């Protein structure tokens, strides 16, 4: 009895401990991403589509400081090619990098110059600094996207839901100028709500205008470019960006688990053998 209660309590602490409700926003819908589960891997075609959405839409306002072009060709990445284990040699990655103009110094004169990117360069930021980012975006700097999929409760599902969550504000809700109503954004809209106090709409005001439109991005693999498709793909891409070693981690995990289970079995057999003549 005691043992059961203790184990149950320990299990509940593990499960319930870090689970916190975040605001009064709507709960994001579950998405069956390919990287979920103990053997999950990223869907490369999806990452490529997601990268295109990021590059053509998100990157206009959001930086992604922690990523370099070479990461795109790393194992598990959108443009990984087994022929080029060193991503710096990957011609696709080189071509993508060369499209970007990178701020640098002329090594002869020291003058500020722009040069085409190389795989070793980080993704260029859309604004020179935070002040410029704020000034161009109504006083709120668009957050860096490198870790977005891990930095929000709900992760990629939340991102996909948020990008699709720009509903028309319910009747009776006044949206402040420069902001947008989004039912998945955590916040408090009660100040602008003139309806029933007990039924304040879910969600909050977000500075980002609805970024996605159907057919805004043309997918090279012919996938129909709906808002849902764009949102899901970019969410998967952001998950890869936040956790690029996920495939390596799960692969190693499988090997470690097999080893540990065998090792534990061996030790249990030894334990039984050592103690076979001892009462306890």
């Amino acid at each position, binding site marked *: 009895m005691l043992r059961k209660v203790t184990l149950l309590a320990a299990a509940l602490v593990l499960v319930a401990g870090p689970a916190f409700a975040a605001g009064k926003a709507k709960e994001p819908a579950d998405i069956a991403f390919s990287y979920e589960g103990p053997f999950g891997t990223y869907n490369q075609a999806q990452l490529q589509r997601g990268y295109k959405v990021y590059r053509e839409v998100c990157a206009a306002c959001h930086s992604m400081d922690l990523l370099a072009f070479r990461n795109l060709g790393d194992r598990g990445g959108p443009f990984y090619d087994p022929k080029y284990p060193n991503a710096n040699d990957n011609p696709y990655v080189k071509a993508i990098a060369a499209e970007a103009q990178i701020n640098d110094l002329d090594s002869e004169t020291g003058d500020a110059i722009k040069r085409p990117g190389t795989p070793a360069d980080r993704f260029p930021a859309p604004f020179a600094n935070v002040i410029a980012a704020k000034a161009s975006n109504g006083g709120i700097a668009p957050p860096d996207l490198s870790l977005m999929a891990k930095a929000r409760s709900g992760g990629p599902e939340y991102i996909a839901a948020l990008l699709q969550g720009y509903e028309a504000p319910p009747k009776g809700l006044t949206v402040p100028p420069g902001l947008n109503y989004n039912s998945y954004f955590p916040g408090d809209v009660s100040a602008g709500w003139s309806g029933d106090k007990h039924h304040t709409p879910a969600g909050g005001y977000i500075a980002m205008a609805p970024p996605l439109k159907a057919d805004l991005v043309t997918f090279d693999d012919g996938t129909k470019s709906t808002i849902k498709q764009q949102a899901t793909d970019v969410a998967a891409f952001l998950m890869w960006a936040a956790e690029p*070693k996920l495939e390596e981690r799960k692969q190693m995990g499988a090997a470690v688990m097999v080893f540990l289970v065998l090792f534990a079995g061996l*030790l249990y057999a030894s334990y039984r053998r050592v103690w076979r003549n*001892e009462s306890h």
Partner: protein
Amino acid sequence: MSGHSTYQPKSAFTRWMDARLPVGRLVWDSFVDYPTPRNLNYWWTFGGILSLCLGVQIITGIVLAMHYTPSAAGAFNSVEHIMRNVNYGWLIRYIHANGASMFFIAVYLHMFRGLYYGSYKAPREVLWILGCVIYGLMMATAFMGYVLPWGQMSFHGAVVITNLLGAFPIVGETITTLLWGGFAVDEPTLKRFFSLHYLLPFVIAGVVVLHVWALHVVGQNNPTGVDPKSKADTVPFTPYATVKDGFAMSVFLILFATFVFYMPNALGHADNYIPANPLVTPAHIVPEWYFLPFYAILRAVPDKLMGVLAMFGAIGCLFALPWLDTSKVKSMRYRPQAQLYFVIFVVICWILGVCGGKLPDDQVIPGLSTFKLFDSELNSYVWLSRFATLYYFAYFLVVMPVLGLIEKPRPVPETISSPVLGDSDKKD
């Protein structure tokens, strides 16, 4: 227990060494020949598991420190550099971050075991107190370690916790200024926390040596609480305890690996992947799960200073435990009433943990409206934590002293081997 040494050096070298620095003899007496009660159950394997945890944390921590930058501008990105660019950096960091949680899971089970079987009672008071010192050092180390990634929860957690010390009259302000290295949590705070976070594990290792030393002087307690009386009651540590501890460790490692490889961020908070920003306070500042019960006790008390005192008092009770428990019988196996209070205590600790993770004014039973009692609705986590806090302290300050005097324990066996060999009693 630390009786006559049976060490026999076999080779010429070990004989030569034994006459000069008898390390071999120490190891033999402590980890091979050392008599272990034969009736230890799996709750006794957490000591070994904890040494493993400490070793893992120190080794991974040393490697992390090779790549980490302790500066407000560089800390967050250096952690991400470890995650993305350092070979197996993601593995080392996830082991270290989840290792802290594993360490606390093991230490809590180790402490509850000591509590249940009366391992703090004479002659093990010093052993128990050294354990409490280790626990305190672990909490300090873990708290400072959580600040190092310099994420939002790191920063604002540090602000909340260090501010608590300011509640002490007269010395409070001096303590916080000294801790911060200035007048707010900032660069100097991060630097001294890093330095101390590197130092304290070695202090822990030192106290662990004392803890093990004290253990080897008085010997291990056991589920009956009756100390071994003859050789029939014990088995040599090696191979009997080593193989059992080894099996338990490997099972524990399976749990550990499940977190590291399949849910590495489950025990962390999403906000800590946002770089620290002193100007933006997270909607809900929560400490790591292992601090939540004490955080709940802190917030249960309306007055700041009293709250801080209650929080430290909750840990202080543990130190006084050997003298708070008046029972003549060590193990609760023979104390049915104490068992009941103990089970409630464990549940209460869990409830406090849940309360610590909620907003104080959130409803415990959603939708049930109640009346306002003093400052808050009765159906709120703050009131639940108040009731739980009351039980927490009552357990140590009322139940422990009083129950020992009034209860009627079941008969205790003469020796360890009598209930085991006789096989008449039930095992719990």
